[in-house]
């Protein structure tokens, strides 16, 4: 995630103090920045001529404003799609890819544990969405929607993996690698 572009975007609305940038970023995206990150990034932006700090106010609070160069950099960011390569590796896909070959791994149980965890996250996002205001929290709702759709896709993919696994085991010749697929998870769960 680009802190640099996040700050430029907030400054494109109007000049702001560092602490205000931090609070506003968190309010809209649900993603927290530490103070150090904010000020380090601001000084780099200032060095690169993308922002200008004005009037060292009392308590050392500078107000930062976007420069034309900063506006151009921000425009480039908004108009360039996020490439899939620039995202972090998908640990879950890698874990499952390795699990199917590893001895003594109960793959259906791995899938179910992940499915339960993903559903719990979906429950969380759904409640947070229900509490948000459709107008005042628009930015925050977009972030929550993204999380909802990503998580839903993950659950569908897990279902797909399970079906694929069952088919593959049915097709494989009998042997140690073709152990029958067991019902996953804990038994007799109840509250």
């Amino acid at each position, binding site marked *: 995630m680009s802190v640099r572009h996040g700050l430029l975007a907030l400054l494109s609305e109007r000049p702001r103090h560092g602490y205000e940038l931090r609070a506003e970023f968190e309010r809209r995206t*649900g*993603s*927290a920045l530490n103070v150090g990150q904010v000020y380090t990034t601001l000084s780099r932006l200032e060095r690169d001529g993308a922002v200008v700090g004005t009037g060292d106010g009392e308590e050392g609070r500078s107000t930062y404003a976007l420069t034309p160069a900063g506006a151009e950099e921000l425009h480039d960011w908004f108009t360039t799609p996020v490439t899939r390569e620039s995202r972090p590796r998908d640990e879950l896909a890698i874990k499952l890819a390795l699990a199917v070959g590893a001895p003594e791994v109960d793959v259906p149980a791995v899938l*179910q*544990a992940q*499915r*339960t*965890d*993903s*559903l*719990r*996250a*979906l*429950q*969380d*996002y*759904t*409640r*947070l969405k*229900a*509490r948000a205001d459709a107008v005042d929290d628009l930015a925050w709702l977009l972030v929550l929607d993204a*999380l*909802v759709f990503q*998580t*839903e896709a993950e*659950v*569908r993919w897990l*279902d797909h993996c*399970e*079906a694929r696994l069952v088919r593959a085991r049915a097709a494989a010749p009998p042997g140690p690698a073709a152990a029958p697929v067991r*019902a*996953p*998870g*804990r*038994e*007799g*769960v*109840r*509250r």
Partner: protein
Amino acid sequence: MSAVLELRAVTRQHGAGEGLVHALRGVSLQVAAGELVAVMGPSGSGKSTLLHLAGGLEAPTSGEVLVEGTALSGLSRKRLAQVRRRAVGYVFQDLNLVPALTAAENVALPRELDGAGARAARREAVEALTEVGIAELADRFPDDMSGGQQQRVAIARALVGDRRLVLADEPTGALDSETGEAVMALLRARCDAGAAGVLVTHDARHAAWADRVVFLRDGRVVDESVYRSPEAALGTLGSLR
């Protein structure tokens, strides 16, 4: 906390001999007032059987189903029909609206069957239609409504007369995603107002409205996901940073 619905070690078998199918293999589940429970699982896992047993539409092979503390197995056929009409509301994928009746008449039907006066039944029906946001369609026939509107009528029919237990089988099945969300919000609101709800769905996004999501595999509960609190929800986001 008293359960509105309780399944005690319920099993259900269909067929016999070579064709014997174990639809449920010992499922225990409690659903309290105010609680919405979603049931997820692949087809053939026993989801729909569970819902049929909960609503008294099928009897278990062994185990017991209790609705508001009453064991369904001990009831006469007549009393069972009464419990089904008075305590339980059903929303099925197949809406089963009567085409020759208006929305209000469809919703009033179970109350009239239950012996409520026509005027009282009509008033309750309009209340239920108001609750689902389509009071103005009370005198329309199902064929003159969109799919989403028909689904709302079916939900109003499931809620009319203060049912304490609402059972829903893929209630968002044929709806577009926005209407589906609205239907889920309605179910959620009904449970927040004190009903117990059981929702069978394959859609994770809809199951996520539930307090608990129960996973069925081959007729057994293999796991469940429990909603905790708003603080915990925000904590989930914290871990994404």
